[in-house]
């Protein structure tokens, strides 16, 4: 009987936890939709131009990506140290490739 109560408590705690998790994920989704709309609106309406717009679009994409990795793919949770290391390593290679090809072709 006591055993059952403890497991019920643990169960309730776990349910609350995954509810909170879901709330965070829904907020992430809202933010991603908002960033997408902002990005398309910026290009569609021509309010900002030139390299500032390019940088802004990149920032919006980057923030969206981090929402996806950290919340949707749980990279912020414990037990994801290896996963984070691998993905940040991938970011570093991406940066080098962009830098290398960018310098070769556009400088």
């Amino acid at each position, binding site marked *: 009987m006591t055993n059952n109560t403890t*497991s019920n408590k643990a*169960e309730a705690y*776990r*349910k609350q936890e*995954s509810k909170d*998790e*879901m709330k965070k*994920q*829904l907020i992430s*989704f809202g933010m*991603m*939709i908002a960033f*997408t709309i902002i*990005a*398309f609106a*910026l*290009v*569609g309406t021509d309010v900002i*131009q030139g390299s500032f*717009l*390019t940088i802004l*679009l*990149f920032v*919006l*994409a980057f923030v*969206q*990506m981090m929402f*996806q*990795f950290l919340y*949707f*793919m749980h990279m912020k949770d414990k*037990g994801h140290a*290896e*996963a984070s290391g*691998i*993905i940040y*390593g*991938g*970011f570093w*290679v*991406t940066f080098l*490739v*962009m830098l*290398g*090809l*960018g310098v*070769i*072709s*556009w400088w």
Partner: protein
Amino acid sequence: MSHDYSIDPNNLPEDPSRVTAEGKMKHLGLWMFLGGETVLFASLFGTYIALKDSTAGGPTTQDLYGLELVFLMTLLLLTSSLTSVYAIYHMKNNNFKQMQLWFGITGLLGLGFLACEIYEFAHYITDYGFTFRSSAFGSAFYTLVGFHGGHVIFGLSWLIVLMVRNAKRGLDTYNAAKYNTFALYWHFIDVVWVFIFTVVYLMGMVS
């Protein structure tokens, strides 16, 4: 034996996909794969950025791209990412039917995305004569966007096989890991798309 993997409904594991050693390895292995995918797409993006203005007198980025279809495709893929989050939520609550339902919706949204992409490519080829062989820009465009579309096709096939194979089996700690790795892969496809709509379409319409 299959009963070794069964989940005790009175004592649910926090994450059924990472209970067994095999499940943990699958999780780590998928992240390693995604690290490799990052590098693959980095080189394709780099190539596209280097070649996007080499149009050889053919159609340019501004001639081709339209915002409406790309926006629709973005919404489809982003929503399918959320529905797979729902599926994993139900997986953790040991609700197999709801999980299958949400993964089914994910698949339909992915299919919608794919249909839009096929329409887009057909439109470029028939109305603009813009093909893989038109120019360096054409090759780079179809390689990058086509590789992403190929990932969507692969993901959909993977999902269908998973859902059919396990339809009568129910959820256990053996196949939970399989569903979970698929969901991670699907989120990654969406991450790549975020950069495609930013770098290819939005920046292509600006410059």
